């Protein structure tokens, strides 16, 4: 796990209040209890706060799975 992956996992665990959560790239809304469209928005807010960045609308449209979120985060991090 890269440090980014660890932080991502920590945000998910804290956000969904589930310490046993193990992230996999293929996970989408239906794989995590409580991950609905409303929670998704505030999850994105939490990621923005954790990583100190803002996502644009194009990125928001992509970030619908754990894998896609990782991809966007990695791209953002290398662009910074």
């Amino acid at each position, binding site marked *: 796990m890269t440090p980014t992956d660890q932080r991502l996992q*920590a945000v998910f665990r804290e956000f969904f209040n589930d310490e046993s959560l193990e992230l996999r790239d293929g996970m989408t809304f239906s794989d995590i209890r409580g991950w609905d469209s409303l929670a998704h928005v*505030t999850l994105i807010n939490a990621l923005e706060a954790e990583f100190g960045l803002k*996502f644009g*609308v194009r990125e*928001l449209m992509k970030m619908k799975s754990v894998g896609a979120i990782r991809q966007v985060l990695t791209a953002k991090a290398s662009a910074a």
Partner: protein
Amino acid sequence: MAATAHAPAFLDSLDDPIRGALALQSDDGAGEGALLLLQDVLSRYGSRIGPKTMHALARHAKSAALGADAAVRAAQIRAIGTPAAQWYAAAMLESAGSFEAAAEALDVMDDVSWGEERALRLEALARNRLRAGDAARVGLPLRYAAQATQTRQTLVSLDRLLTQAQQSADLPVKARRRIAVLGSGVLDFWAGLLRPALFGFDIGCEILTGEYDQYQQEIRDPSSRLAKFRPEIVVLAVNWRSLGLLDETADPAATVRNLIDGMAALWRTCQHRYRAAVIQLNFEIPEVDPLGRLSAASPGGRARVIHTLNLELWDAAQQARVAVLDVEQLAAATGKRNWSDPGMWIAAKQYPTTDAVPLLTRNLAALVRAVCGLTSKCAVLDLDGTLWGGVIGEDGLDGIRLGGDAEGEAYTAFHQYLLGLRRRGIPLAVCSKNNEDDARSVFRRHPETVLKEDDFAVFLANWEPKPDNLKNIAAMLNIGVDSLVFLDDNPVERNLVRRELPEVEVPELPDDPARYAEALHATYLFESLSLTDEDRRRADTYRDNVLRTELAEGSTNLDDYLVSLRMKVDLRPFDETNLPRIVQLINKTNQFSLTTRRTTASEVMAWMQDPACYTQFMRLQDRFGDSGVTGAMVAVREGETLRIVNWLMSCRVLGRRIENLMLASLIRHARRAGVAAVIGEYLPTAKNGQTSDLFDRFGFERIEEREDGGRLYRAAVPAEDEPVTWCEVTDTTAAEVSAV
């Protein structure tokens, strides 16, 4: 990289050395070297930590707690003594399942600061107590955490803890309300977080969150979810985008009028159909506009129209007894670029942003608190370090810092703010460990003092414990201890008062005296619905009462004393002019209150129009001043009887036999209206014990006694009035006498 026993020098150059060290550790595993590094870092950099560091430490501690010797290592780390080490040790204990030990560590840990860090500690304390099965002691840390937090994330955690705690224990609150939040945008992003925000003000609630942009239908449709919910408070949170304003409006005056009329129609429905109090959010003036700054200059520009709308909204709302939440001000305070995010609006209809939620919900909760009549009533002030720099008993008049230089002027600026509170009717009191003469000398003789001796309603400078003094202050002002706000720069005193008297509000004060006013303001404890003339006079009234007490102590009997006050009592039916004050009085009065039935302005207006209703308010003046409207009574005709459903008097006018006059006036009306008997009712509360035998004292007969302590009384209407010799009474409440 090799294990390092001591923190490498480069950590010094990082903004956040602790997080830097934790990042090193993740490469390093959890060997002995890693532990030594951690201990060194916690000791060296751990005296002040921010919320991000606290989150990072807690995460790290979770992975470190997996070993069997977690308790031993936690004790080792805790012994380092810095807040960071204590926090880390508590997180280890929690992960190892030692919730009680974790709670104990968090309870004694010093706060790193008075903002989010404090909220995180208290949240963790509440969580560990809850997990340790101690739900009954979760309420206070939850309440303080909700007052302190500045993030939505923590509010969400607090909401979760609150819900869990309420399942296993009854967390007492001062009031409960059903609140509907309706409006535009996706309200679910913040409406539910009113729950923890309100709990921070000791108020419980049930929240109904309106559907996206459905507020018009929800209010108008008598079979809507809203109707079934029976809201006691309706919050209308419509954002500026839903106003449908063009960049330039052709007829701005008509547009504003139409918008206000539309809102007023919704208010009326809420007030009449649900008897609900209404809170209307006003409108942000967006920064981004094609007209640029000219949007505010050109007559139909959107910015100018919203400016006008907001101004006219204050007036329309005041007339309709609706409370306005100043969103434009909140957006400005947050910074408009942080208040809203164009991407999040477009993608998710989120408004305002996550960052804005704590300020919004806290302000809304403060307004709900005012609607519940729970506005705090008195500011109690420590002296040394709070109203001036230094210690008067040691530094003397010439040595303390008050005016003169930047530090001294920070204190005089705080004096100005407090004087402003006093002018709007919040009495000030002193509670300080000092020799009284030393303490008073500052307000008598210091050339720079803004506050003067007679600005204080009560002045207690002595060496008694502060909780005792606070109880005395409340007793002398005849208000509840829970109406006090205590300001002290010394955290030890603050914590002592919180421990001994949890009902007193004790805001955190920052180190910098220049920020005292801001810190006090941001508690919103003195937010009220309206400012009446009575409010503006009240601080004087409290002070005058202390003078009256002195006069009373000099008089040999009550009659002489009452005559010497030269009272004038005016009894009149409720009217429009005095309506805000009457509603305020009915909702705030606790002690001399027979039934303590709270009400809304719309309900009171309904009574005023109902011919079967008798209404009376009381206004009192005496040689010391005008106490204003300080009593109210409502009675309902039921056949041959007249039943008193509400009767209350402000604690400021008690002990002066005014109750006799109010009752005599009702009886006079009853006689003229041909009523045979008056029915009285007493409903006990935690605070109205002094009225429990009031009707007995007036010779009423008990006709019903209920299990809950409630009683009904009856008295026949006598043929004649008793003469009043000890004051001057004007009474216009009685029914017209039919020509005799």
